[in-house]
Structure formats: C-alpha cells, structure tokens
C-alpha cells in the first residue's frame, strides 16, 4: 500500500513559466528557408507584380488612378460594408457558436453542418440564390437587389462561418468549472460571462472578425449579380477592378488592387496587435 502511495498519482505536468517556447536551433534554418520560398512563389511575387504594375506610371499616376470618383466610391462602399459585416459577425458568430456548443436542441447537427455551406458553395451560386430570393421576381416580395443592403446581405452570407468556426473550438475547450467557481464567488450569469467567459473568447472572436473583414473586402462572386454593379452606388472594389480590366485600364485596376492589399494588411496587423494586447491585459 505504501509503495502505491509513493508513486505520483495523476501527475499533471505544468507548463514552464513564460509563454514562448524556444525551438531547438537545428532544423530552424531549413524550415524557415522552405516556408520563405513557398510564400514568395505563391504570395509575395504575385503581390509584388501587382504593386509594380500599379506603379508603372509613377506615384502621381497611382494617385490619379485611385482618386477617380468611381474608384474611391467603390472603395468607400467596400470598406464601410465590410466593417459593418464584421461587427455583425463578431456578435452573431459568437452567439451562434455559444448556441451550438452550450445548448441542446433538435436539428443541432444539421445547423452545425449548414454553417460551412457558404464556404463550400461557389460564391457565384450564393449570388444566384440571393438574386432569386431578393431579385425582381422575388418569391417573398422583398426586392433588395441592386441596393446597398443587398451588398450587406451577400457579404453576411459568405462571411458567416469565420467567427463561428474560430470561437466554437475555444468554447468547447473552455473549463466550465471556471464559470461554476465564478458563480460560487457571487457572480451572476451576466457578470460571469463578461468577466470569465468573454475574456477567454476575445482572441478567437478577433481572429474570426479579422478573417471575415479580409474576406468581405475582397468579395467578388456573391456581389457581382445581386449588387447590379451601379458605379458610385453599389459597385464594390473587386467588381470595379474587374470592370477596369474589361475597359482596358489595367493600371487603374492594379492601383486599386494595391490599395485593397494595403488596407487588408493594415487591418490584419491591427487585429493582431489588439489580440496580443487583449491577451496580455487579460
């Protein structure tokens, strides 16, 4: 009996202090080299080419192209709608993830599977579906096609999974005893959510929101049919770029592309920064 007692029972290794884990130097160079080459071929070189193309007429040419009223208007619309959609996703995505993880209801698995549908569907098909629903022959007599709300709906549709799918696993892993501890310490449901659950979800919510913003500003397929592409009104940036190419203004297309690229980079960097800050602050 004493021998059994001496053995460590249910020993749980604890993580060493500090949050960064240093990898061994061997294999480091090879891995980094490979990743760099891959990313260069797949991402950096094409992006560089776009930037170079947009700069072919010099900085003033670039400025001229992106300050065209049509271009500016499409950019403003895209950024504003994407921001709106991202905020809605941050709330609704968290709520949907919560419902899927914490509640039990009939048809739950079906709904869980449906969340991924906007990922699986070609976005042009999504556009087609939305056009059928909200178009001139709308079955529900709701004619939203060719308006700005239609753009919002199309973008909400295609960006639905991002926050849900990033919050869901975190919520599943979350130690529910933390919530029980908070309650036994006197916290009501709302306080428990705000002070214990939410801080643990924030990094995942931010990551999902950033992805949905990035996806929204670049969306083409789902908006091209339902928005009607009315310049200065419902034309989004990606569609504007396409129409510039169609009208043989390649450098204009490249200029706007570069600007979109820049916005995406700044937003993703900002989110990463906020995320780090939120984690550090606790």
């Amino acid at each position, binding site marked *: 009996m004493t021998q059994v*007692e001496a053995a460590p029972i*249910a020993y749980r290794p*604890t993580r060493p202090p500090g949050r960064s884990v240093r990898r061994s130097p061997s294999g480091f160079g090879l891995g980094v080299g490979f990743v760099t080459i891959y990313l260069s071929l797949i991402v950096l070189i094409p992006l560089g080419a776009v930037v170079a193309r947009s700069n072919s007429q010099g900085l003033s040419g670039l400025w001229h192209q992106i300050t065209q009223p049509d271009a500016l208007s499409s950019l403003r619309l895209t950024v504003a709608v994407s921001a709106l959609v991202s905020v809605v996703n941050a709330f609704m995505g968290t709520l949907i993830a919560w419902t899927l993880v914490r509640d039990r209801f009939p048809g739950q698995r079906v709904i869980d599977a449906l969340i991924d549908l906007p990922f699986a569907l070609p976005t042009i098909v999504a556009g087609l579906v939305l056009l059928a629903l909200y178009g001139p022959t709308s079955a529900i007599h709701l004619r939203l096609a060719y308006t700005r709300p239609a753009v919002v709906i199309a973008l909400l549709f295609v960006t639905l999974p991002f926050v849900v799918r990033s919050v869901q696993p975190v919520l599943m892993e979350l130690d529910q005893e933390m919530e029980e501890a*908070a*309650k036994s310490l006197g916290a009501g449901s709302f306080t428990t959510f705000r002070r214990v659950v939410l801080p643990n979800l924030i990094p995942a919510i931010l990551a999902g929101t950033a992805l949905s913003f990035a996806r929204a500003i670049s969306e083409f397929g789902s908006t091209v049919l339902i928005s009607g592409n009315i310049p200065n009104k419902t034309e989004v940036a990606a569609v504007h770029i396409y129409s510039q190419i169609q009208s043989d203004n390649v450098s204009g297309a490249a200029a706007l592309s570069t600007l979109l690229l820049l916005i995406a980079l700044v937003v993703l960097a900002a989110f990463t920064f906020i995320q780090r800050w939120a984690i550090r602050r606790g």
Partner: protein
Amino acid sequence: MGISVRGVTKRFGEFVALDDVSLDIPSGALTALLGPSGGGKSTLLRIIAGLESPDSGVVEIAGTDATTLPPQRRNVGFVFQHYAAFKHMTVFKNVAFGLEIRKRPKDEVRKKVKELLELVHIEKFADRLPSELSGGQRQRMALARALAVEPEVLLLDEPFGALDAQVRKELRAWLRRLHDEVHVTTVFVTHDQEEAMEVADTIAIISAGRLEQVGTPDDLYDHPANDFVMTFLGPVTTLSGDLVRPHDLELRAVPDAETTEATVVRVMRLGFEVRVELVCAGQDLWAQTTRENADRLDLQAGRTVHVARTTSATGAPDPQPQGAGTQTAR
C-alpha cells in the same frame, strides 16, 4: 447548525447518484465525505453548493433553507479538483474576484488579498498567471480565492486529487492547520481513506448513493456499521467466514479452543511489519505481525501455526435491516 441535508435524492437519467441521503454537518468542523469513485459524494457536495439541484430533499445552510437558492446567493466557497483558476487573470485578480463582485473599496480588496496570499504562502506570485504556478500553488490560490468572500461554509471537491503524492501529503497537513486557524465549517470530498482519517474531525461514508455511516475516524475504524465500511477503511482478511483486520490476528505455536490451524504460504518482511500469507481450511488469509513475533515463531513457508483473533478485534455487526432517519455526526 452548519449544514443540514434532508432526504436528498438525485438521478442522472437512469443512474441514481444519491438515494434519500440525510446528513447533519456541525458548524465549525472539518468533515470528510469519503467513498469510492462514482458513489455520489461529489454530487452531494455540488448540491450543497447549488451547482446541482436535488430531485427531492432539502438543503439548509446556517439555518436557512438554501434548496432553491442559486450558487451565487449561498455564500459558500468551492474548491475544485482541477483548480478552476481564472486563467486570464493574475493570481491577485483571481483572489480579488469575489471581493470585486461585491464592490468592496479598492484599498480593502488590496489589503484582504494580500493577507490571504500570505496565509496560503503565495504572496510572491501575486502578479503571475495561474499557468505559471505549480499544481499545489494553484490549489492554494483557489483556496485563498474561496476564502476571500468569507463563506459560511467551505466545500472542497477532491482538492488534492490532481497533485502528486508528496505535495498532497503536505497540503493535507496544511489544510488541517489552516482549518484550526480559520474555523470555517469545511466539507471535503475524498476517495482516499488515509486522507480522510488524517484530516477530518468527522467522516461520512457514502457509497452507491447511500450514506453508510457517520462518525469520528476512530469510531468508524473501531466500530464499522457494516462490512463495506470495514473494508473501505482499512485492510481486511477473512477468518472462518468473518471479516477481520490482519493486525487483529494473533499467530501462536500452541493450539487451544480459540485457535484455527493454518499453514504458512509466504512470509514478507516489510521493515517494521511482517506480512504472513496463510491457508486455513483451503482459504487464503493474511496476517500482520511484528518482526519479533515472526522470529519467535520461526515463521517460514510450510510451517503450521494456530490463528486466533485478539480480544480487541474489530468486526462489523451482522447485517440487519437499515434504520431510517437522520444520522448525526458527533
């Protein structure tokens, strides 16, 4: 009165976790709920805390009916086996949580948290995150966090279960000393009889959803109510069909009216203790004896000895119909 549980029943689907359990836990005492895993003791503790609600029965805390109160209104401190640390908060913030919820002034919170961290000896780690502490330190933090709100009762669910043996032993002794200082009514769940015997004033034995016996550690060891309690609290062996403790068996060289003849199968010398395996009328049994006795009888495999129960031997009474009603801890 500390805690009074009356006629509590709890089912999870078909499984009966607690079957009409009644138990009085006196104020200021340190009580252990002891029993095998899955026996219902954690469920009882969670019902007292309000983390589960009973299907029927009543829970009173400090004289008030708490059966329908939510956990946040019961003023209990709860300590979980896996610490349930708020992993996004520093140690200081963890301990301060209950006080901040109660909107105590900042100065008071800071002072109280500092005192508690000193009480549990982790004052140097106030600014660390829980993930930067060892298991034992995390559990002490959880205890400080539960004590911060000055709870009516302190409930601990297998508090040392996730720790390794050495730390567990230290924390046990430390919990006993802490209780002697703080005097809060404390109930802790354990499946380790040694832990319960060492730490608790009173032990309640729970198995298969029923309360088997309540009493002081000595009471239970010396006067077990039934074979289950006797088996659970210490080593047992069988002599002529009766359960008996191996250290209550006497080995003699000369037979008499009280003895039974047995053959030695194996002798194990474990330091101070000598463990003797025997066969008696085709049945295995074992006895604990001292080195001195073993040498005097020249015990070795194949030798015939005569086994008797010592006069002070512990035994469980023969099974009898169980009496209903509340068992009260003394």
